[in-house]
Every structure is written in C-alpha cells, then in structure tokens.
C-alpha cells in the first residue's frame, strides 16, 4: 500500500473531534452549533410559521425552506456574501434531505425555515450543516421520524477515508457526502463527485454508515444533556 498518512494523523476511519450544542440562539425557535474539527456551523430554525403569499401555501403539508450560506471570512480567500451556485445547490439537497424526515402533514399551510451559516469551512461543511440542523429541529420541537446524521467519505491516494478536511477534499479522487436516518436505515442525501469502482463505493458506504452511527450517538447525548439543563433550570432534577 502507499505511504499515505493523513495530515492530522487520524486513522482512515476516524472522525475529527466533534462539539455539539443546542439552543445557542435565543431568538430562533430552535438552534444548534456543530463543530467537526475546524468546520464550524451554526443553524437556526423558525417555524412552523405562516407561509406568505398565502395562496402558494400547501394545503396538506408544511413547506421546508433551507438556506445554506458561507460567511465571507469562513474560507481562505474572502468569499462574496451573495449566494453562489454551489450554495444554491447545497441548499436544495439539504432541503430535500429534511423533507424526507420531517412529518410535514402535521403543519399544513405553514413553512419551516432553516437557516445555516458556515462560520469556518474546512471540508465536509454540508454534512456538518445537516448534523446541526437535525439538532436545531429537535430544539424547535418539530416532529421528526428520526434524527439525521451525516458524514462525508472519500478516496485519496487510493485509500478510503472518512470525514474529509478541506485539503483532503481538494486533493481527493472522490468525495461522497451521505446523510441518513440511522435507526430506519434510510438514506436522505447522497452525492458523489469523482470516480469510484462499484467495490470502492460499497466499502465507502459501509465506512460511512459506521461513522454515521457514531455521530448519531453524539447527537443523542447532546439532546440528553440539553434536556437535563432545561430540567435543572425549572428545578426538576
């Protein structure tokens, strides 16, 4: 095998250190902060709230709207604050991922608005965003079929790796973000950029699912500790 070593010394299937926190913004109905190494993301959820113009609201279910945005100083060279084509596409795939996990028919004629700001980008920003939004939706008390956990996997120098950093992403032969509902074993987001054989794809999928299960546990732990602090606040421990 090649002499490839990851720049931060991680094993190929090792995640970067994760930090997650819920209810970080007081104005939003739900919010969360999620950190994977140097990738730092904050997400806010508003709703379910009334949709305007009213005649375009869906009579049977609520709408989900997502805006994924990178702040200008989140990347090495300043990025224009306007939405790029990349950001529009990512907003769309995140919206569709959550469209499959929110029980939308509970809130007809309404909208659930999700806003994501990438504070610092170092690869895997869309999956960190999904992990953050998942917690923010729980914080907002919105009915979900399951939490959504996401991770990116990829191939670099013929090795299969998990949780790509920005540099690894730039030099990779393939990268593949995956988001799923781990308990239901359903995939909500899948993209792949680069080239893979079918065998490599299957192996990456397996590695991705294992990593997703780890993130799922961290999310559940975050929800538990957030709930405990709320109970403490009301003196019911």
């Amino acid at each position, binding site marked *: 095998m090649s002499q490839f070593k990851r720049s931060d010394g991680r094993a190929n299937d090792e995640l970067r250190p994760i930090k997650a926190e819920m209810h970080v913004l007081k104005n939003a109905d739900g919010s969360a902060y999620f950190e994977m190494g140097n990738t730092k993301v904050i997400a806010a959820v508003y709703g379910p709230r009334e949709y305007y113009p009213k005649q375009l609201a869906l009579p049977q279910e609520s709408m989900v709207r997502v805006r994924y945005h990178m702040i200008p100083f989140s990347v090495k060279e300043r990025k224009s604050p306007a939405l790029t084509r990349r950001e529009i596409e990512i907003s769309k795939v995140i919206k569709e991922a959550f469209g499959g996990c929110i029980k939308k028919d509970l809130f007809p004629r309404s909208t659930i608005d999700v806003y994501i700001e990438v504070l610092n980008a170092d690869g895997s920003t869309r999956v960190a965003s999904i992990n953050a939004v998942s917690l923010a939706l729980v914080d907002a008390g919105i009915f979900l079929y399951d939490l959504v956990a996401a991770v990116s996997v990829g191939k670099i120098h013929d090795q299969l790796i998990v949780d790509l950093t920005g540099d690894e992403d730039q030099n990779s032969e393939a990268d593949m973000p995956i988001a799923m509902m781990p308990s239901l074993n359903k995939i909500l987001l899948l993209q792949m950029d680069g*080239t893979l054989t079918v065998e490599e794809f299957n192996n990456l999928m397996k590695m991705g699912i294992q990593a997703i299960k780890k993130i799922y546990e961290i999310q559940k732990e975050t929800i538990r500790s957030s709930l405990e602090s709320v109970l403490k606040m009301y003196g019911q421990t």
Partner: protein
Amino acid sequence: MSEFKYGVFIPKIKQKFILNLLNNKKRVDNRDFIEYRKIKIKYGHIPNADGCAEVQLGNTIVIAGVKLDLTNPYPSEPDRGTLIVNAEFPPVASPDFEPGPPDENAIELARIIDRGLRKPEVVDFKKLCIVPGKKVYGLWIDIYALNHDGNLIDAAGIATMAALLTAKYTKVDVSPTGEIIRTNERLPLEVINFPVYITHVKIGEHLIIDPNLEEEMIADCKLTTIISNGNLIGGIQKSGSGALSIEDINQALENSLKIYPRIKEIITSSVK
C-alpha cells in the same frame, strides 16, 4: 416531490392509477422498468455553435450547444482549459417555468452535468492550453430545455455528449513574439472519457428508469448515477425529498451499469 406550482398537476386518482400499474409490473406508456423512451438526436442545425445537438427523449426536448473561446486560465490551473456548464429552463418548455435567472433545479442540473465532465475529464484540458498562465481555450456548454416531459437530466447528458462529439474549434498558432494567430484550420474536440447520465425514480416500492413527467411528479425521490467508461461510477446525485434504502441504490447502480453500453451506442452511432 411537490415542487410544482400550478401549471402541471397530477390528480390523486391518476397517481393511484400509475402506482397500481407499477404494482402489476406495467408503466403508463407500456415500457419496461429499465427501458428508455425513444431517443432521437439531431446535429448541426445551429451552424454558429461550435458543436450542438438536439435530443428528443420521448416528448422531452433538450438542446445543448458548445462554444470554445480564448480566455484566461484559473490561477490554480494555469496550463489547462476551463469548463463552464450552464443550464436554463425557459418558459417555452413548460407552464411551470418562469422567466428569470436559473432556479435551483436548473443550477442543480448544470452542476450534475459538470460533475460528470470534470472527473474523469471528458476532454484533455491540457490540450486546450495555448500559452500557459496567459491564454487557454474555454469550453462553454449551454443546455436549454425546449419541452419538459420528464427526465431533463438524462436528455441533457445525451445532448451534451453528442454536442461534444461533433464540436470543432479553430486552431491557433503562437508567433515567436507571443502573438496569438487564428488559423483557418478546424480541429475536432477529442472525447477521452464517455459519461452517461442515468436517472431512476422511486415510486412506492418501485425503481424505474427514465421517468416521464407524470412519473417524475409523483415520485418520492430521484437518483441520478453517472457511469463513465462502462464500469466506473463518475458521480451520484440524489434529489427529491424521499428516502432510499441501500438496496435501492445498489439496484440503481446495477441497472445503470447494464444500460450504459446501449445509451453510449445510440449516441456514438448517431454521429456521422
């Protein structure tokens, strides 16, 4: 997928009808689950483009045009030509499309097509370099939907590849003083990797290829796989707000690998 507005609407009774047919292993237009509609490709009717193709996939019509022009290279890749893919869904194609800049669906389509052309490279971009760091050829691909009857992605993929296969560009010489002189010679673009875009939709428990508009609108979600050179996966995109199981994805990949040679043959044999 409930993304439509008011132009096209599929009544509940029709949705049930399509689903019942699928449960009996049938489709509204009598096709097999992994059968494409009739593909017709027309070339060269737009002489001002460096390469163009109009693809009819059943009633879906997509036109793709290629233009090559001198431009500056990206600083990170000084010795390579550039690639820009743009797609628009103009109102001629559907009552659902509105005038204005490309919406998220058009942007997504352009980015999926782009993904298949970049890695592995569809043409040798190093050959499109003229003066490293100063002048290169830029390859612009513009995709326009003319009639939307489902599966614009696959039609756009076929049109793009057909347009690239027939594209020609002007040979340029560099004089000793560094001036760029256009010659009268026209060179063909050499396609070195051949991606084919294959889209499945999931309706109920069924996975079907090349959905028409009705099938696409009632689908839970859509999975586009890009197959390159017969045995490599060159890209994947899941869209639409449903969920897929791992078995669905494996099944879709298997179908796509099986169907790849047929679609490639249709495109290559149509080029004179």
